[in-house]
């Protein structure tokens, strides 16, 4: 991992198209601004991890046995 120390208003460039700037520091929080092309996905990490956790819970091996699906979702003709 590359570790850099920045002050408020200082920036980091990634490739030529992504810029990360420290907008402000308040106590234990850092406000971070990110400029990036539209096709770059930017997420809070915990959001990504939550989706990954949900995907693991959605594994069909976790399906309860004997799910009465035709009762829960009656077929519409």
């Amino acid at each position: 991992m590359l570790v850099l120390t920045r002050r408020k208003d200082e920036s980091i460039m990634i490739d030529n198209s992504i810029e990360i700037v420290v907008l402000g520091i308040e106590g234990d929080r850092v406000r971070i601004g990110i400029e990036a092309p539209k096709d770059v996905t930017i997420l809070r990490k915990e959001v990504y991890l939550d989706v990954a956790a949900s995907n693991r819970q959605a594994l069909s091996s976790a399906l309860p046995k004997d799910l009465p699906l035709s009762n829960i979702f009656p077929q519409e003709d």
Partner: protein
Amino acid sequence: MIVETARFGSVEVDEDKVILFEDGLPGFESLTKYIILSPPELNPFHILQSVEDKDIALTIADPFLFKKDYSPLIKETVFDELKIEDNKDAALFTTIVIPEDYMKMTANLMAPILINSDKMLGKQVILDKGDYPVRYPIFKNSDVKVG
């Protein structure tokens, strides 16, 4: 081709039914090839089965079955990435988590799975805004008719 699955044993599928997820799925980033199985006994659910790992198979469903007004804001760049030229080639699914108390089943409306059914490309899109939850209770409102 034969696909090994944990739940259904060996399944024969057309190679042109394999969907490529270039980024894999969150939690399974190295698995990029999947097929959709639709056994009648699981209706209305389908299984997004990894072709590369028989144990990785996610329960998915059409979100409009239980949320008719679902309108995820998916950036145009995602449509470009999946080479979707005609909107009728776009298919949307959400993953489903079914606990033992199955009436508490939830759908991940925050990260729908978008598939280009013509070019067989797919991606799980994590939405920007906080409008939709990762765990939407399917039976909380009246869009679903319960037997």
